[in-house]
């Protein structure tokens, strides 16, 4: 079993998943990814990642519902919403739904440090 901190990324865009996986793995994270919110919830419960990076606009089940259902199931891990919808209302809605942090897309150069901060915060 890896002793690296685990990050779960849930995003329906495979290109974004590949990019984030590469960057976080390079920074020493163990990375799990999925394009499906339901599968993401199962992984979160089973593997208890240090941080979940959660896209909001997704087909099948959106990020608001993923975090709401996870919190309803008692999930207490750190969750950062990561979305290209960056209005003030979007930010507040993700926090209200149960996310701890809000990361706007495009992600910047300090993305990896931000994930570490969230993990240790």
């Amino acid at each position: 079993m890896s002793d690296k901190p685990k990050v779960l990324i849930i995003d329906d865009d495979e290109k974004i998943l590949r990019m984030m996986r590469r960057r976080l793995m390079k920074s020493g994270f163990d990375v799990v990814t999925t394009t499906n919110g339901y599968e993401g919830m199962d992984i979160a419960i089973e593997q208890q990642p240090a941080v979940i990076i959660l896209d909001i606009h997704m087909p099948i089940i959106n990020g608001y519902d993923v975090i709401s259902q996870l919190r309803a199931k008692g999930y207490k891990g750190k969750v950062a919403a990561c979305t290209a919808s960056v209005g003030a209302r979007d930010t507040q809605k993700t926090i209200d739904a149960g996310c701890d942090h809000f990361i706007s897309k495009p992600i910047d150069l300090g993305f990896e440090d931000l994930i570490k901060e969230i993990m240790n915060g």
Partner: protein
Amino acid sequence: MNLDSLFERSIEQAITGVVIADCSIEDMPLIYVNPAFTQITGYSKEEIIGKNCRFLQGQDSDTKELQILRDAIKSGTDCKVILKNYTKAGKPFWNELSVSPVYNESKKLTHFIGIQNDITTKVESDMKLLKAKEMAEESTRLKTDFLNLVSHELRTPLTVMLGNLPLLTDADDMPEAKDIEEIAKDIQESGEHLLSLINELLDLSRIEQGKLKLIPEPLRIDDVAYDAINTVKSLADKKSLPIIEAIKNFDFIGDRMRVKQILINLLSNAIKYTVEGEVTLATYQEGDIGIIEVTDTGSGISEEFLPYIFDSFRQEDSSATRQNRGSGLGLSITKKLVDLHSGELTVRSEKGKGSTFSISFPVI
């Protein structure tokens, strides 16, 4: 001049309608109406004296306002209501009616006096203003939604492009060659997606300003159709969707690039919204009309959204769970391009079963 005769003359000459109903008689018949009332309603005095004034009401009179009036009459109090009434000819008018009880010396309720103003012009003007305000608010909302959508659609490919750059600029720790190849492909595709979105926005802007000029030439539909199919084939292959070609040639005048764009837009949409089944492109001639049909077995369009399908700033699903990305401009641009060709674009669709977009062009 005595006061009674002055009152009578004033009421007879007033431009507001005045009626008096007798409470001591069952059904409260009218015992007096002034000439203004007969002019507003179209009834003569003889026709209405002795009748309850409910003859002014119609099926769509506001029941809430009527209830206020009934309650006031029942309790012997005054009220002011606005009623939709009808003239003798059946023409609706808005009646601002003030009703007051009249008591005799023994404090007994004997009559009601009603004063009515025809405020139809004002009500219609208010309704027009309200409708204009609602339309302006709807337009603002749609534009805000659209700007948010465009912002989201621009940021998504930019995330891939900008997010991958640090991986390619760290000279001490470059990814392996196969990874670099994959990253470059992702950046390339994201850039192309971004460009197509920008082109769509520019196209829409040019068309709406009347600045998009066609370069018409004689065209064979089979040439353009196969060309368009070749362009979208890789998209269909990725989803293992066959494109059925039912191409019969007809000749027409059109802008080759724009007609191809029309077909690509319709075929791409059909592929995007179809999970299983097939996409069919059929072209054929009926009399003087050349017909192009793009049919899919996809998710279809709801009956409620169908009237808005070609609107620029609308998406059937703008929620966080929407299944497919895109600016939502494609169909609007396609419709406008067909219009510029003096053609007609129509759609038939059933939710869950699929859609057929049909274009008709005049043939040569």
